[in-house]
């Protein structure tokens, strides 16, 4: 599977328009090139701005506002301004390491993602995106008082518009994004209310020094798929299984093992370049703990299953042959169920 993913990424990258002829004759800018430039822009463009994000659920929505300070190529600080309960919390990402600071509870958490600052990971993302989505240019609109070109990303298999981008004409930074459900309804939107392009950001903004009286928590470490994926599956402690069906365009992009209350969990991650799907597996003889969430019951293939919706995200859980499974993604319940049916130990 790993070999397939790597081969796929290289093949898809080589199929990008203009790549093969780039040395002879520069290809004219097109929608795909614009999207690629937008994804790579944070590597060389620094900025300070205020970003608002709204996530819609079935009936209600919730929002956050963050101040974002980004120093190219890979230093970013995000500070929560709203909601009030999160005001003042911030996280600083330096390359592959993210430090989350909660000043109210005097807590800090350091996590690491070896793939997040990796050129091949970026190329794989772009390759998946290009293979699965068609970029269609739209009109120029004003976002944060700047002209931005709109680009719709249409799924090549279903024709559905899954995402719309507003790309700054001058810097190619994405000023706004909207993601849509399969039925066309809005799932979430993020948008800069204001943005200023500058590299003059004081170094103390990115200081990750943790005060001595802060409680430091062990954070997440996501495996680098080029080295750890196979070993991660072997380390699961049980025979891991994969779904036999995935929606068109989805491929495995990584896996990790984690421990919660002493329970070993395998987490396999899939993506189609925009949407992400998580499959969790463990061999504990226990029902999932929904806590304050109120799950609904559903049935498929002779199984009793439960699901909850968290904004645009759906979590589906069920048990089979001594294994407990959970599927999470911004996909409709029907689609998640279709995947779940294909997971047979």
């Amino acid at each position, binding site marked *: 599977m790993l070999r397939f993913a790597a081969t796929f990424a290289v093949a898809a990258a080589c199929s990008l328009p203009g790549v093969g002829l780039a040395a002879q004759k520069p290809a004219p800018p097109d929608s795909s090139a614009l999207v690629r430039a937008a994804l790579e822009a944070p590597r060389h463009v620094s900025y300070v701005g205020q970003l608002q*994000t709204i996530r819609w659920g079935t009936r209600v929505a919730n929002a956050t506002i963050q101040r974002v300070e980004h120093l190219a190529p890979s230093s970013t600080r995000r500070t929560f301004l709203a909601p009030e309960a999160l005001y003042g919390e911030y996280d600083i990402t330096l390359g592959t390491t993210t430090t989350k600071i909660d000043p109210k509870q005097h807590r800090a958490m350091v996590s690491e993602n070896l793939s997040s600052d990796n050129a091949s990971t970026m190329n794989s993302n772009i390759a998946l995106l290009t293979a699965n989505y068609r970029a269609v240019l739209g009109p120029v609109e004003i976002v944060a008082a700047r002209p931005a070109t709109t680009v719709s990303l249409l799924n090549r298999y279903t024709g559905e518009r899954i995402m719309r981008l507003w790309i700054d004409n001058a810097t190619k930074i994405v000023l706004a994004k909207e993601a849509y459900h399969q039925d066309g309804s809005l799932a*979430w939107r993020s948008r800069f209310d204001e943005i200023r392009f500058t590299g003059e950001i004081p170094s103390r903004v990115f200081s990750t020094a943790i005060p001595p009286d802060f409680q430091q928590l*062990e954070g*997440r*470490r996501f495996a680098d798929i080029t080295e750890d994926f196979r070993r991660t599956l072997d380390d699961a402690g049980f025979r891991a299984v994969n779904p036999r069906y995935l929606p068109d365009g989805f491929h495995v992009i990584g896996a990790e093992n984690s421990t919660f209350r002493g329970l070993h969990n395998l987490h396999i991650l899939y993506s189609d370049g925009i949407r992400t799907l*998580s499959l969790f597996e463990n061999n*504990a003889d226990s029902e999932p703990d929904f806590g304050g969430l109120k799950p609904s019951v559903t049935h498929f293939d002779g199984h009793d299953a439960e699901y909850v919706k968290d904004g645009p995200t759906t979590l589906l859980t069920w048990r089979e042959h001594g294994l407990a499974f959970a599927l999470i993604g911004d996909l409709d319940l029907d689609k998640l169920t279709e995947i779940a049916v294909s997971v047979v130990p």
Partner: protein
Amino acid sequence: MHYNADILDDYLHGALGPERDATIHAHLETCAACSALYDEAAAVRDWLRRAARAEEREFPSIVKARVWESIRTAPAPPSLADRLRSLWRPMIALPVGAALGAFIYLGVPGVHGSQPAGVAATYLLEEHAAVASENPLADRGLIVPASVVDSQQTGLIDAGDAGASSGR
């Protein structure tokens, strides 16, 4: 004869007795003026309902996660045995407690081994959000703040150790 708005409002909300309700129901079939007044009241009611629905807000999931975290980290409430001990004298509590314990252990199926709590759904949602947000096109609002990360899903590390540790 016409009914006033208060009576029609009561009729609209089903607050009248069966006999009065039937009388007004029959009257509305034949009286255009009362029927118009009734429609107006119904329109106002529908408008209010729509407005109320539009104003409905749900706690953000991160706030719900925080509440759940607080519940989990709160001290456990006193058990039934603790409460009985505090209420009863040892002379009575000892034999009664022993008899009750034996009855429950031997007589109630499933008590011998309780099922362990499974993985928390909030943990799974947070884990998914953390990883999904690495996609350059992801919703950055997915980022889970430190304050809502369940302390039970992490381990304390020495303050001097700046490196992240694997969960494996």
